């Protein structure tokens, strides 16, 4: 037999070697080290899953070891002496089996006790089926092999892959896992779970939280796909794998209750994956609810880690969910209809009230480390925030996440600052007149190289701030689903361009406005199915959420095919609220703009979802704070489209560099409508002081920047200088400068307290030569009122 995937075999062989090394580190006394073993085992399974000609014995071997390990995980999360012995036997056997496979030789015989362990397995033996899962309540093989003369492994205390720190490993762990929960009689549905595990250093728990959020996110996405297509194999696999990883992770931090719970969820999915169970509405609701339980736990853990009342317990409906899962697995219908309705928000408030008395806790969990704030995935940030580090756009099902590292955002920002300074230092070196005078080809080549590297470095550093909008977008699918269920509407959310990258700060700020607008679309936009059908539209409404680049902007578009905006009603409402008067003659666009006015809401009844009248004005304000703008386009009966334009990043703007006298200023490119050298006759004076320019038939006031800033300028006659037309909203103003120097991307720096009362400058930037350039506050300049004859208003 000629192996089809030599690279798979190589990888498996390497993993087995690593596995042997890991085994050597397993401490037979404390019997810890399961985490490392589990992790490697998972990698082995993944690698083998890619090959489709895995010999049967290897499969059997994998099933056997997976069973041993899962048994231990399901028990106390510790390796027992005989498991260690078995692992020590398994590894060399597997190495040989893989060697035989690679040479195309006949495979070895599987040891009898292993196959015994496997025979009860549900796995039909399909080689490409990935990791095998056995049902819970496994029985250990009847025959336990006599322990072979096995040398104690090297007494190394350093755990390379183990999640436990050496110090912890040195201490004998408690024989019985910490009592994680105390079942209380007064609450039949909820099980009280202590949130902080008995041991595990805070840093590890932080990591757990961060990863758990990602996994839960994946889970949620998977479920939403399954809801539309319950047999979607990739989603089933991804979902299964996510639960599986989650189970491994809770095993590592020794949360037995949750581990058992995730195991049940996993079994359910496994059955679905293998076609033994058809996922119906009930099971999907159950899995979704399960994910919510996990999320509530993780959110609470994150909060306690942040020092917020550590030691609190949380009530989770685990027993009910487990029994429901078992019932589904047994092919029964659920005794009580599980709610596929919107899950409770990921808050733990209700459970706090019914915490058991502190005495019921066996041990006080260790208080969270106080200095953990920096990495904390805050509870509010929960799934909402994307990972702090840009992740390559991996598919949810991708087996290898291409090595993602989590970095403290403070460190990241520090790095970006430093790189910025390096670039400036570099340009100062390169432009140094002494160096420039040296006519040495070697030196100039080296300097050129330095410049290339620093600019590449800067680009890379800036890219670190960028994260895909995926996480924020996908959060919306859950929202839409819940809203649709709640209101009895049929709504489909179509996401496009999720891979579009945005500045991390922007992504975080974008969440709330998006939620608001999606809610508006679902609540006011999309009609109930019957109304839609009567109007000749498909019963299912569609909300389209798109992100794309357009001319230096990131554009986010929320389009629904609902009823659109009713100009008449908006206008009537606005008049009623006194926002406009009856005689004002507004065009359609201006009427639509009224919905952004503070306190405006046309919802006839105040629903739970939207219509409290604090909606779109907040959205607009948020977007404008991000230096973006929002536009609205609606067609009665056809739908509404909100378009948000955002700058690529918060930290950098593209600016037009203009010169006045010796000074240079940066005008944000977004605000520059055009610039030109005025022809004679284009500029007219008003009362001998003010000036207006005729731009395309419109008279626009002219502001001489030199006069305004009281700095000497070179150009006095309008035809000697340049007119830059800047705009803010609907208004525009012409700014007269000496020259246009060029376009440059600049990093925005704050001017600080001392300058907070001035309105001329929005900030400062370090220019290429190391000098500071001031960024004009276009908004203030456009709106500038008459002041001492500088400007004609």
């Amino acid at each position, binding site marked *: 037999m000629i192996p089809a995937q030599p690279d798979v075999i190589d990888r498996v062989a390497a993993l087995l070697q690593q596995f042997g090394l890991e085994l050597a580190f397993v401490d037979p006394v404390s019997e810890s080290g399961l985490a490392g073993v589990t992790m490697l085992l998972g990698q082995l399974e993944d690698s083998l899953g890619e090959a489709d000609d895995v010999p049967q014995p290897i499969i059997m071997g994998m099933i056997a070891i997976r069973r041993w390990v899962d048994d231990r995980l399901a028990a106390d999360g510790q390796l027992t002496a005989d498991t260690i012995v078995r692992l020590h036997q398994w590894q060399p056997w597997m190495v040989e089996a893989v060697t035989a496979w690679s040479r195309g030789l006949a495979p070895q015989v599987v040891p009898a006790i292993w196959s015994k362990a496997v025979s009860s397995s549900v796995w039909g033996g399909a080689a490409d089926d990935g990791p095998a899962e056995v049902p819970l309540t496994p029985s250990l093989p009847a025959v336990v092999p006599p322990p072979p003369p096995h040398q104690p492994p090297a007494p190394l205390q350093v755990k390379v892959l183990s999640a436990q720190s050496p110090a912890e490993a040195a201490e004998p762990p408690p024989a019985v896992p910490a009592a994680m929960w105390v079942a209380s009689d007064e609450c039949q549905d909820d099980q009280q779970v202590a949130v902080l595990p008995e041991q595990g250093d805070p840093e590890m728990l932080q990591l757990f939280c961060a990863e758990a959020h990602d996994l839960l996110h994946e889970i949620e996405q998977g479920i939403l796909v399954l809801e539309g297509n319950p047999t979607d194999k990739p989603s089933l696999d991804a979902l299964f794998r996510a639960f599986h990883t989650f189970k491994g992770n809770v095993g590592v931090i020794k949360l037995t209750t949750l581990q058992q719970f995730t195991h049940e969820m996993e079994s359910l999915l496994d059955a679905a994956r293998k076609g033994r169970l058809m996922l119906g509405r009930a099971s999907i609701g159950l899995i979704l609810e399960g994910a919510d339980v996990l999320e509530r736990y993780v959110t609470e853990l994150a909060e306690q880690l942040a020092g917020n009342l550590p030691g609190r317990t949380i009530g989770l409906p685990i027993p009910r969910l487990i029994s429901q899962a078992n019932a589904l697995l047994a092919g029964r219908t659920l005794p009580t209809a599980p709610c596929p309705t919107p899950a409770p928000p990921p808050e733990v408030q209700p459970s706090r009230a019914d915490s058991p008395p502190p005495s019921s806790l066996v041990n006080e969990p260790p208080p969270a480390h106080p200095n953990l704030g920096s990495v904390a995935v805050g509870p509010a940030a929960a799934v909402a925030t994307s990972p702090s580090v840009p992740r390559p756009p991996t598919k949810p099902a991708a087996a290898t996440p291409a090595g993602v590292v989590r970095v403290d955002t403070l460190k990241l920002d520090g790095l970006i*600052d*430093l790189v*910025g*300074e390096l670039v*400036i*230092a570099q340009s100062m070196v390169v432009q140094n007149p002494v160096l420039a005078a040296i006519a040495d080809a070697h030196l100039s080549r080296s300097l050129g190289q330095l410049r290339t590297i620093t600019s590449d470095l800067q680009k890379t550093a800036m890219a670190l701030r960028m994260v895909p909008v995926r996480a924020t977008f996908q959060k919306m699918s859950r929202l839409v689903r819940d809203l649709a269920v709640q209101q009895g509407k049929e709504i489909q959310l179509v996401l496009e361009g999720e891979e579009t990258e945005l500045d991390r700060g922007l992504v975080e700020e974008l969440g709330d406005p998006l939620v608001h607008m999606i809610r508006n679309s679902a609540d006011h936009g999309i009609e109930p199915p019957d109304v839609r059908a009567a109007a000749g539209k498909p019963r299912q409404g569609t909300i389209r959420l798109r992100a794309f680049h357009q001319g230096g902007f990131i554009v986010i578009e929320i389009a629904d095919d609902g009823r659109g905006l009713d100009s008449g009603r908006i206008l009537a409402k606005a008049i009623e609220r006194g926002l406009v008067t009856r005689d004002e003659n507004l065009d359609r666009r201006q009427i639509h703009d009224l919905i952004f006015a503070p306190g405006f809401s046309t919802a006839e009844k105040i629903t739970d979802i939207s219509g409290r009248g604090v909606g779109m004005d907040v959205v607009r304000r948020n977007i404008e*704070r991000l230096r973006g703008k929002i536009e609205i386009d609606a067609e009665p009966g056809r739908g509404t489209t909100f378009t948000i334009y955002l700058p690529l990043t918060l930290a950098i703007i593209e600016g037009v560099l203009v010169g006045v006298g010796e*000074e240079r200023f940066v005008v944000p490119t977004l605000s520059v409508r055009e610039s030109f050298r005025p022809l004679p006759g284009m500029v007219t004076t008003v009362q001998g002081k003010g000036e207006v320019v005729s731009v395309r038939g419109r008279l626009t006031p002219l502001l001489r920047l030199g006069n*305004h*800033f*009281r*700095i000497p300028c070179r150009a006095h006659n309008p035809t000697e200088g340049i007119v830059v037309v800047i705009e803010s909203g609907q208004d525009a103003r012409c700014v007269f400068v000496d020259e246009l120097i060029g376009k440059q991307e600049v990093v925005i*720096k*704050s*001017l*600080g*307290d*001392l*300058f*907070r*009362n*001035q*309105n*001329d*400058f929005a900030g*400062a930037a*370090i220019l290429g030569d*190391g*000098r*500071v*350039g*001031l960024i004009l506050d276009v*908004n*203030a300049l456009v709106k500038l*009122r008459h*002041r001492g004859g500088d400007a004609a208003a």
Partner: protein
Amino acid sequence: MSEATPPLAARQNGHAVAEPGKYLTFKLGHESYGIPVLKVREIIRLCPITLVANMPAHVKGVINLRGKVIPLVDLRTKFGLPVTLDNERTCIVVTQIASASGGARLYGIIVDGVEEVAHFTDADLEPTPDFGGAIDAQFITGMAKASAGVKMLVDLDRIWAADCAALPDPRPPQPE
């Protein structure tokens, strides 16, 4: 503000009184001034200054301190001293003070040359005499008698706070 400004700042009626300690002394015109050495971040050469328009005369503008934009203040103008032409001894003392909005702020002071770091004991220090209205001494925390003459000790925090508060507000603040 006072907690963040060691080692001095025992204040009486809002007026700081100089405490013994190490001071960096520098020249402004022909006079010698001192500031607590713990407030000094670094001393740099004069560098290109970007003017910020419509600011009080003593706010010279902003400079680039290795990627940070920091304001630059000319104490000579502030104290009404004659502004001498910049020479090779002219330099910028970068100081660090607690800002009203929390955190430390850097700002630069143009001086006509730094002298030394001197240690002033209680015996060296004297409270600011009352000049009888001829001189506004609100920014002076005390006088130090040194071998080379008298040094006026400057209350940077007060100058900063006054600058931030007293600046003209030409237009109503815009909503952020």
